[in-house]
């Protein structure tokens, strides 16, 4: 079983009931209530279906209910494996071609329509939606909050790392999973808030109602006066041949499998994209015992925070800049990936191609806002605001404020005379700001007394170290005058408590003091299970991952609040202020194959995953038919699939550009219900529909 039973950060899932199920007739075991996709991964199954168009193997892509690539037959009925819960005795099967409609011919007994009303419908229960709902409730509005997941918190529940930001405002230094629990508890305590968890909003209607697929089993209409769209973001797909093979999926999907469901879905991954999502995915992989062959980034610089990138590098993961993925290949699943450097035009230089033996390629090429409901609401003349990633892709810390600010904006639209606290807006702006300048640090010489050494040189909104220092000796040095300023040790009252070392989300603070002329003691943070003891030696690395020296461990202590190990090493005094990382990964994991093997046909890359329409087909069709309208791409079925064009539409601009059409001149498609497929029996609230698909066999 590919389960994560030991993890340095997240506690093991307990209290789950193990059940039997079958896949294509083979007996398997999983946990009741977990998502079928995770149960299958845990049993080594990565190919769920064969596409009806050409038999191509299909695995997961988003693991988030957004695409439909993970569809599998559940007791004969096609369901998305990533959002369908496992139950004892389920008969799962490969969907091979079109499914056969089961002969369930008993007369239906519809339970009739169901309607709920509230002042405000909040779509999405992530940080911004929770913040908005809470603030609206405080202002006396009745609120219905609907979210497509069973657990609120949105993507916070996947974040096992400590948050940046400021501790007093947005729980910085706390891990996302813990923040989610706090926010949910607050909202559940409010009497005027109705929470519809596990219940996606599937459509907006002209009569100012929303359709909700409640518990994925019945249909509820919600009448509202106004809307908050806080539906988050979805992962972007990118175009390369093999981008549809099982084993190519989103970095967020990976985090879902690993951090939420505690499944080890891969042995070795290659990550495409060096934004914070890609960098953190690498970190999460290592924590889950998965090797990372490297991160490729098409730009000539890292896209995410420098502290994240440095952290990853010094754990032994290389980041290849100006490099793109050329091809991913394998028999029915990913077996190798080929990357190459790019020229000034971002086209790959094939003579620089290198192959990597990996079983998984994580796509971390950015996020697209899920703002469709907002655009519809505006078109339909509804009162609506958007918040969080649906408004602008940014960190969860800024989304918390964004949600509360959006609540005020909506209250004003609803006629309330309220004014938002200006300081919130300033805080949100700071929290979502891009990194500022890079300012090199002055060299530190070890002394008699403890003192911290900072390895953060890039201005980012972050300050937990300043708030945890018991002597108040760490302060932001006011260069800009906001949260982006860098922290410095001021004064000489360091007590060696290591609180700053443990709290730093970037693992970018060490403490040191001189033992004698030759040697110093250095305290380093470590977020893995240290399988070594005092007396053992470990490779210590510099800020950007270069080997410095092998040093002896003196002692190890565990900081419970931050769930971080503090490791004390004996380091030569000359190097003591240079070391900050401990190599985690064997360098062999990042080595390329002796010679690359690939057949590169960029036009075979899949754009529309649901209907398997390639880049080449689309470009040809656009040219031959003089297409300037996204709607017409449906003639070759692009965008006609179950996902409702959620994934492919973000790629259309590049497709039109390749066909010689200016994307700005292209007419967009029309947004229509439903955004998630709903069975007919659920739409009429057939009681038998509740409880899911295992009911009945062929009648």
């Amino acid at each position, binding site marked *: 079983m590919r389960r994560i039973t030991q993890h340095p950060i997240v506690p093991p899932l307990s209290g789950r009931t193990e059940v039997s199920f079958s896949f294509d007739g083979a007996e398997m075991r999983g946990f009741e209530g977990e998502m079928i996709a995770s149960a299958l991964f845990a049993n080594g199954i990565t190919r769920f279906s064969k596409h*009806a168009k050409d038999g191509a193997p299909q695995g997961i892509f988003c693991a988030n209910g957004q695409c439909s690539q993970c569809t599998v037959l559940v007791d004969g009925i096609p369901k998305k494996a990533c959002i369908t819960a496992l139950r004892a005795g389920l008969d799962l099967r490969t969907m091979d071609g079109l*499914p056969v409609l089961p002969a369930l011919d008993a*007369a239906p007994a519809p339970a009739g329509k169901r309607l709920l009303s509230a002042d405000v419908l909040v779509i999405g229960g992530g940080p911004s939606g929770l913040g908005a709902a809470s603030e609206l409730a405080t202002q006396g509005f009745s609120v219905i909050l609907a979210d497509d997941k069973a657990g609120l918190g949105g993507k916070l529940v996947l974040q096992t790392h400590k948050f940046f930001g400021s501790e007093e405002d947005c729980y910085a230094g706390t891990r996302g999973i813990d923040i989610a629990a706090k926010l949910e508890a607050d909202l559940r305590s409010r009497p005027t808030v109705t929470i519809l968890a596990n219940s996606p909003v599937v459509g907006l209607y002209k009569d100012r109602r929303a359709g909700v697929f409640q518990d994925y089993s019945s249909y509820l209409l919600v009448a509202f006066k106004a809307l908050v769209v806080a539906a988050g973001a979805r992962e972007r797909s990118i175009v390369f041949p093999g981008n549809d093979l099982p084993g190519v999926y989103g970095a967020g999907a990976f985090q879902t499998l690993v951090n939420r469901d505690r499944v080890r879905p891969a042995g070795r991954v290659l990550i495409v994209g060096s934004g914070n999502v890609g960098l953190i995915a690498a970190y999460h992989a290592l924590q889950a015992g998965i090797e990372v062959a490297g991160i490729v980034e098409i730009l000539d610089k890292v896209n995410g925070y420098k502290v994240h990138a440095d952290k990853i590098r010094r754990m032994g993961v290389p980041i290849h800049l100006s490099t793109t993925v050329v091809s991913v290949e394998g028999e029915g699943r990913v077996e190798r990936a080929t990357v190459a450097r790019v020229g000034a035009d971002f086209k790959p230089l094939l003579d620089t191609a290198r192959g990597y033996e990996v079983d998984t390629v994580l796509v971390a090429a950015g996020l697209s806002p899920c703002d469709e409901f907002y655009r519809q609401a505006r078109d339909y003349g509804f009162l609506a605001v958007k918040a969080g990633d649906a408004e602008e892709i940014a960190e969860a810390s800024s989304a918390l404020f964004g949600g509360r600010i959006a609540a005020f904006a909506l209250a004003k639209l609803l006629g309330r005379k309220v004014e938002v606290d200006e300081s919130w807006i300033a805080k949100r702006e700071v929290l979502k700001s891009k990194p500022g300048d890079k300012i090199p640090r002055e060299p530190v010489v070890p002394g008699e007394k403890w003192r911290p050494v900072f390895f953060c040189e890039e201005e980012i909104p972050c300050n937990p170290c300043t708030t945890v220092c018991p002597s108040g000796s760490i302060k932001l040095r006011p260069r800009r005058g906001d949260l982006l300023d860098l922290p410095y040790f001021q004064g000489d009252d360091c007590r060696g408590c290591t609180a700053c070392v443990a709290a730093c989300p970037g693992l970018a603070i060490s403490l040191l003091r001189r033992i004698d002329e030759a040697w110093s003691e250095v305290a380093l943070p470590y977020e893995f299970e240290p399988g070594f003891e005092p007396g053992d030696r470990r490779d210590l690395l510099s800020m950007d991952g270069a080997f410095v020296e092998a040093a002896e461990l003196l002692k190890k202590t565990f900081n419970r609040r931050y769930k971080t190990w503090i490791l004390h090493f004996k380091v030569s005094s000359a190097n003591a202020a240079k070391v900050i990382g401990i190599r985690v990964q064997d360098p062999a994991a990042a080595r390329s194959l002796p010679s690359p093997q690939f057949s590169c046909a960029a036009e075979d890359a899949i754009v529309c995953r649901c209907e398997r329409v390639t880049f080449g087909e689309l470009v040809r069709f656009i040219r031959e038919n003089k297409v300037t309208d996204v709607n017409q791409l449906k003639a070759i079925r692009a965008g006609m699939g179950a996902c409702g064009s959620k994934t492919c539409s973000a790629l259309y601009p590049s497709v039109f550009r390749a066909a010689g059409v200016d994307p700005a001149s292209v007419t967009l498609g029309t947004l229509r219900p439903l955004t998630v497929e709903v069975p007919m029996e659920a739409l009429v609230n057939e009681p038998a529909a509740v409880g899911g698909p295992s009911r009945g066999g062929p009648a």
Partner: protein
Amino acid sequence: MKKFDVLIIGAGSIGVPLAYYCAARSLKVGVLEREASWGRGQNRAAIGGIRATHSDPAKIKICQESLRIAAAFREEHGIDIEWRQGGYLFVAYDEERERSFRDLLAVQKAAGLDIDWIDADRVAELSPGIAREGLRGGTFSPGDGFASPLTTNTAFHRLALEAGAEFLFGETVTGMELAGGKVRRVRTDKEVYEAAVFVNAAGAHAAEIASMAGAEIPVHPDSHEGGVTEPVAPFMQPMLVDIRSDEESGNYYFYQASTGQVVFCITPKPQAWGAETVNTSGFLPLCVRRMLELYPRLRSLKVRRTWRGLYPMTPDGLPLVGYTREADNFLLAAGMCGQGFMIGPGLGRILAQVIAEGAKEYDFIFEELTPYRKFEGMELLK
């Protein structure tokens, strides 16, 4: 200023096929369309049925032509328009309906339609899983079928382009100049056009266009919603039509497309007059309830998408085809009452022949569908 032999206003279900058939006859054709591309009006909202099973001879004639075109399309043009000859099946669950269908059969057969009564067993054979309780049978016309409105319109657009037609997208007609009983010029927000014949194929906007030529025509849109499901393996053959109404709705109909998806539509009660095309929350629960009452087996089928389109209605449910009294070169091809997709190919081929050759054999169509008729009664199988 640009000059054409034929200038068609509207690049939809009617205008695009007509453009192709005119261009194929070497006429110089222009098509004005205010939307960004072809089929952006009501074509994209059509569900795709093509039937000759009507109660009016002119419409039967036109749609028989459409059926011939659809059935031969792949062979003739090498393009797949997702044509499937599944037939139309009007089901009867009570004596009264059975009697009226049987009465109509005589008229339909006299018009040359291939249609007959089939019993309940045969109905269930064609649509396994249909409710048997009270099922008496139905009238089945095996020659009818369905195709994709988008692929069909896209194919005609492509063929028209290749035949030399010029499409002028993103242009809105702003006025017309009449003199001597003819339309002389059409003005848009971008250009001025002259043509020997101007065709009003403006669908839901036909009355507005006609008024620019001084003609008042009784075309008023009402709106209907439709939907499509996930694809499943073929399980039902015909377009099922249930013309019963209940307190919330009129008739409804659905079929399984060649792609495996079930496409459905219902007539709301009361009719929703106006040009609103945003979905309402009532449609799905209503239409699905009625579909499940008729066809319980659909229960696990998932609805994928819905939409709302307009039926450019006339008072008697029949199209307006003919020249206006104000201008004898201003041809109406309008008021298709929600059947533009099935009428378009046949009417396009017929009108092209009339425009190019002045063919007399179709005079009866012009007589029957003249915009100056009395508009009595209502088409029975609307």
